[in-house]
């Protein structure tokens, strides 16, 4: 029986790949072929859909917009979370447990609850339709997550490391930057990966907070889907392209992910 255990993950991966294959398949077809005939493989192989995306600024800007706010959010979240996670892992202070729990509750807040107030808040501070607005809004769920992951990694580093550094006469910030951060590099990698991931896949807030200048690629797609239903090939091509950054990121951090999961911190 054990000989056939490989079948389970294989079938599962096959199941995972099927819709992606279909998306890829469609992205290389012409609209006529999609609507006219049912084919498992593009008969008239075309790159027109991709060409359109890379030449039309409304498309490729969507891409750049998405990447901009995602990177911005990842940097902000991890930078802010580092000292906080350190405090939670090393010190006791007034209200620490409540604060930690309060942070985590924000991970549980349904974005739909916040969509409208966010729109009003960011309009009020004149940040509507900017990268920073989306980057800041995504902090709502990414900062708690980053603090949680980093706290897990930091608690795994013995306190003696800090003490040795102080005995050696390191001032706190130099110790933190020169010694501590390199020690938990894996944790920072994992935290950054998850911040990237959740900011990249979230759309409800990103769409609510942007109109033109910072509109994410995924939102551009939605427009196409709803207003121009016949451009399915284009939609498929754009969808395929949104998978690529994620795939890259996974490939580079694949060994760290398992480690991050192993700590039970996601």
């Amino acid at each position, binding site marked *: 029986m054990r000989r056939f*255990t490989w079948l389970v993950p294989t079938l599962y991966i096959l199941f995972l790949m099927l819709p992606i294959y279909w998306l890829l398949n469609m992205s290389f077809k012409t609209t006529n072929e999609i609507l006219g005939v049912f084919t498992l493989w593009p008969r008239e192989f075309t790159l027109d859909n991709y060409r359109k995306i890379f030449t039309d600024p409304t498309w490729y800007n969507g891409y750049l917009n998405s990447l901009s706010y995602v990177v911005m959010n990842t940097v902000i979240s991890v930078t802010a979370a580092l000292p906080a996670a350190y405090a939670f892992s090393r010190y006791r202070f007034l209200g620490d447990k409540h604060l930690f729990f309060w942070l985590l509750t924000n991970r549980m807040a349904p974005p*739909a609850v916040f969509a409208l107030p*966010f729109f009003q808040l960011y309009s009020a501070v004149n940040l509507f339709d900017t990268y920073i607005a989306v980057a800041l809004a995504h902090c709502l769920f990414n900062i708690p997550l980053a603090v949680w992951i980093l706290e897990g990694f930091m608690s795994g580093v013995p306190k003696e490391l800090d003490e040795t550094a102080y005995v050696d006469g390191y001032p706190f910030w130099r110790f933190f930057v020169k010694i501590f951060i390199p020690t938990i590099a894996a944790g920072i990698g994992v935290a950054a990966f998850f911040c990237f991931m959740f900011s990249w*896949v979230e*759309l409800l807030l990103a769409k609510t907070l942007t109109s033109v200048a910072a509109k994410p690629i995924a939102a551009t797609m939605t427009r196409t889907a709803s207003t121009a239903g016949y451009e399915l090939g284009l939609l498929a091509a754009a969808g395929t392209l949104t998978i690529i950054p994620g795939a890259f*990121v996974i490939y580079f951090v694949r060994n760290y992910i398992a480690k991050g999961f192993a700590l039970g911190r996601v």
Partner: protein
Amino acid sequence: MATKTQNSRAWLFVLPVVVLVAFNALIPLMTVVNYSVQETFGDNVFFWEGVKWFEQVLHSERFHASLLRQLMFTSIILMIEVPLGVAIALSMPKKGIGVSVCLVLMALPLLIPWNVVGAMWNIFALPDIGLLGRMINGLGIDYNFTQQPGAAWFTTILMDVWHWTSLVVLLAYAGLRSIPDAYYQAAKIDGATPWAVFRFIQLPKMKRVLTIAILLRFMDSFMIYTEPFVLTGGGPGNTTTFLSIDLVKIALGQFDLGPAAAMSLIYFLIVLLLCWVFYTLMMRHEAQ
């Protein structure tokens, strides 16, 4: 824990985080609370309404219906994804190139923007141009998720299983990898059956990660919005209108700010409450 030192300056360390999160959480939350107790007829004129909206929402059949749908959806996907994820994790390779291949391919759905997931499943499941739709109809089953409530539910659940089972797999796999070989060797020597190995070694060691997996899947599926919205738009009719979709319909579609805000708060409280109950139960069980 016992070795932590008391240090009130630690507040300086957490200040940036508190400011950023508070800006995003407290101000919108206050706005929501504000709306939830007032009535407006436009022009930014508001009247105090007390708990009227809360009463209205709690007694509304529409809210009951979406809450029920939401609970059903969440329980179904939990019942499928958790055992399936554990089963897949158990049968994954333990070393070699296969591990990386599995991890990378399985994590892929997790990194696809949620509306792309919805759109992808839309074109995958459409009965005329979709592979899945064609296949099911080819089997002689009449299937059209844009028209049949049953088919819509089936497709939404299948999509969620496709999208999120990997999270459970990755967590369970990490839990399994942390079990030292000696446990398996001891079990072999003690003559334990594969079932006993699972029941007395693997399951207890996975408990922590599985708790996290269930919590995460519970929270996220309870908040699900984008994927079903893109896939079915909440239809046919209201059959796949889950809480978030309903909320956005009321708030942005009908601009009924008061009821929407009251519903938001109730919704948020339900998530918090269920998470808290679940978490305390698990912890109490652990402490025994």
